């Protein structure tokens, strides 16, 4: 299926494998980028895209295999090294130093320790040219980034890449922080560069962008390279099916054991909710005993929504209310939410969840310890029994509370984290993408577990960026897009295509609506600037 490039590749990944300890992030990855092409790199979350990017931008070195630039193997031991080989990268995270002017942020790293590569004027002119071509105001080069909008910050990092000499530009979800006009100007700029034989590796979730831009696309799935397809083949449907690994992506999809609940017995609700400043407001009901899936691409508001529901994040406007035996109590913060029976399982395990220096038992019992304590002194026996109970229920391996949490696989660590909150026996359990980068066995356990919980009357709200997951275990799915719930799907309408389409701001039903949406999508993007 892959069409080999005619000229020798600008950059080539040959049989790259990369491991973090036990977990394999990338195995036998093959990717070759021809001069003057825009090469798409697509795949669901955790498919190894970001690993590829890190390898090419010199942040990591591969465990096996080699990176070739212009045909010869190179060692990209640092971002500086990558730039020496004229590979520049713009990341999704807008990496700027707030204490330096925009201009300094753009040119830092181009010069030696002391020697400046260019005069201040030369820098300003070069930078202003690029900034102007991206349609942003040159003022952003002078002011301190503290006060710039997300989009303006991203313009800085784009400029940083474009002012450097480059053969390959890597855009790692870089457009997700841009407003539409800037994005389009960027695409125009890239078009010119292509004519000069420069190439772009374009990593994006946004099908519309891919369609506009790419010549070829390489698809990654769970760490493996599925293949590379030419522009003609690279239709959304094709790519999606390659990403999901199913040929029937277009086909109507029904989930086993689906039950649509008529009972509008609402336990948690958001009223006139808007997640970030100026984002459109919406309402959302969570029904008692259901599993509500929250879908959407990274950075489209999904995680903001769950955080807001759990009281971890303040609402920009509107309110979240929980049903406390008949009366609506407003959720003001996560401590109060916890007292009202809402438990929140944070998303980023490492940053927000685990205590790396502590044991499995400690990690699991942290939130509920007081319940086993008299006068601050807990009865370790009763804590341990509870911990073991949860560990059995969740099937944590190894079944040893005194095991260091850092010794566990991602999946088991995640089980422990969930166990911490299950131990609190909440009415509503809110999970922030609990299954990201988790092995299949664990996933299966989870689906069953969640069912069990709902049987027992617990309500579950679960964020997932993997459509499969949402389909497999949710009663309803609210898809977030542009910082608001774009659509809530259930029953018949809850299909792979529907979810996928909604993620990209479309309704499967009518194609035209895509334009409407993208237009109001734009308006929203504009306001944030």
């Amino acid at each position: 299926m892959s069409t080999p490039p005619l000229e020798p590749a600008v950059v080539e990944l040959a049989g790259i494998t990369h491991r973090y300890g036990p977990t394999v992030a990338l195995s036998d990855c093959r990717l070759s980028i021809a001069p003057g092409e825009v090469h798409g790199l697509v795949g669901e979350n955790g498919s190894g895209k970001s690993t590829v990017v890190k390898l090419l931008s010199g942040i990591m070195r591969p465990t096996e295999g080699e990176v070739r630039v212009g045909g010869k193997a190179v060692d990209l031991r640092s971002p500086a090294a990558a730039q020496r080989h004229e590979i520049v990268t713009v990341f999704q995270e807008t990496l700027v130093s707030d204490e330096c002017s925009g201009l300094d942020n753009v040119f830092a790293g181009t010069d030696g320790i002391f020697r400046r590569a260019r005069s201040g004027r030369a820098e300003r002119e070069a930078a202003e040219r690029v900034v102007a071509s991206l349609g942003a105001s040159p003022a952003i080069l002078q002011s301190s980034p503290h006060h710039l909008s997300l989009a303006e910050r991203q313009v800085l990092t784009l400029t940083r890449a474009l002012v450097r000499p480059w053969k390959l530009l890597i855009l790692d979800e870089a457009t997700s922080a841009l407003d539409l006009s800037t994005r389009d100007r960027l695409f125009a700029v890239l078009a010119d560069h292509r004519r000069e034989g420069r190439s772009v590796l374009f990593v994006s979730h946004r099908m519309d962008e891919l369609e506009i831009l790419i010549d070829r696309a390489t698809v990654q799935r769970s760490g493996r390279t599925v293949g590379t397809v030419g522009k003609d083949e690279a239709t959304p449907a094709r790519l999606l099916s390659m990403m999901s690994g199913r040929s029937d992506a277009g086909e109507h999809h029904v989930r086993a054991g689906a039950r649509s609940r008529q009972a509008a017995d609402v336990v948690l609700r958001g009223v006139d909710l808007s997640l970030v400043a100026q984002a459109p407001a919406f309402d959302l009901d969570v029904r008692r005993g259901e599993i509500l899936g929250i879908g959407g691409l990274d950075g489209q508001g999904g995680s903001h929504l769950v955080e807001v529901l759990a009281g971890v994040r303040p609402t920009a406007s509107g309110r979240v209310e929980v049903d406390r035996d008949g009366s609506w109590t407003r959720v003001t913060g996560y401590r109060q939410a916890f007292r009202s029976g809402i438990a929140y399982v944070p998303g980023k395990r490492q940053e927000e969840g685990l205590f790396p220096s502590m044991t499995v038992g400690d990690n699991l019992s942290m939130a509920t310890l007081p319940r086993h304590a008299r006068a601050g002194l807990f009865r370790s026996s009763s804590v341990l029994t509870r911990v073991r109970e949860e560990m059995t229920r969740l099937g944590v391996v190894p079944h040893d509370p005194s095991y260091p949490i850092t010794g566990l696989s991602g999946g088991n660590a995640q089980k422990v984290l969930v166990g911490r909150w299950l131990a609190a026996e909440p009415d509503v359990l809110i999970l922030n993408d609990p299954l990201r980068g988790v092995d299949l066995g664990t996933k299966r356990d989870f689906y069953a577990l969640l069912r069990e919980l709902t049987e027992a009357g617990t309500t579950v709200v679960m964020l997932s960026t993997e459509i499969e997951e949402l389909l497999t275990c949710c009663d309803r799915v609210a898809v977030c897009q542009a910082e608001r719930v774009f659509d809530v799907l259930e029953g018949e309408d809850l299909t792979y295509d529907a979810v996928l389409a909604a993620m990209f701001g479309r309704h499967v039903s009518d194609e035209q609506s895509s334009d409407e949406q993208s237009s109001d999508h734009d308006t929203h993007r504009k306001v944030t600037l």
Partner: protein
Amino acid sequence: MTAPSTPETSRAGWRRSALAVLLVGFVVLLTACGGLSADEDGDSASADEYTALGTGKPATEADTAALEDVPASARDAYAGFWHSTRLGPNPYADWKPSKAPWKFCYSSSYQGNTWRQEGLTVAEGIVDQLDEQGLVDGDMIVSDADNNASLQATQVNTMVQKGCDVVLVMQPPTVGLCNAFESAKDAGVLVVVMQTGTDCTNAIQSDFGSYFAGQTSAKWLVEKTGGEGTVVMCDGIPGVAAAEARQAGATQVFEEAGLTVEHITGEWTPSTIKSQMLQYLTTHPDDVAGVWDGGVCAVPVTEAFEQAGRDLPFVTGFEGACAWLANWKKTDKESIGFTQGAGQGVVEAFKVALRMLAGQQPELNTLLYPLPEINASNFDEFYKPEMTLSSGCNAQPLDGESVPSSYYDDLFSGGDEPATFESRLDQLPVK
């Protein structure tokens, strides 16, 4: 467009240079350590009329010569002066004292303990008396530098600006204030340094004969121990001239007597002294013939011996603290010591200052005096029942002062009769 020196190459570059600098650095550090052995060889740097400061070093010709010139009546007190001070002519030779009333100022390097407070109290008492005689202009300005040399220097300067005629400086650091003293002298202000030697030759120093005192107590210990066995010297703060001087005196005596000498570093701090002594005793099971006190040691050392369950050897005292007397009474073990309260020191400093204000010329820049001795014969006169093991006070000279005013007659010449005052040391609280 990529420049010749990319970050990459420059990295290799800085690695190399970093290593180079590292090497050079270590070389320099090593030379520094080299100085360890080498700073013995003589200081030819000072060719002026003042002797060199030779802390912990043997006497030079210049030193012995200078000692010859000291009036015989005072020579004892000047023994081994080079350990703590520099001897030479009166730096204020062409200084014309102003007419009374005078403004007195008191610059202390630290006031945070009882000993220092006694000094200040006495000084204030004296100034009040002189005030009654109409010799004082305004209140005494007092400053305290909290052991910060440069701050004390500015404080001295401030006093000069505020029109002090006499600045009494309590235990300044050995170096660090000379510049301040110089500018004071230029401004016609008399600077008298009390209770410590100094490296500055532009101030008048009033101090007791540390070396001599060290010798005296050491001699007593040799006699008591019968000149054999091991004596432990409880040293003060390393590098502080006052401490080194008495230690030099004692060492000289012990070596002569052929005793084995071992050291602990007490740093004039009871808790340190006691832990050091305990650690010494635990590591040295064999008998100790005696302990020589370089300051503050007597009581904690005695406690250490008692608490380590060892029989108490002869332990000298030094500064004659009330606690030491109480300890002597309690253990009934004979000892020897001196009265060395800050008050006494201040009294002597005032005597010197007043003589110079009266136009008298000191023969030397440094005026040393012997300390009254406390021994078995006069113990009962010094001991008072109020004294306890934790008293902070000091024993005071029986006749109210370390030496009679006449002591200075040989050390000064010319001028008129100085103003007089009562030391009133006996009126200090005993607690």
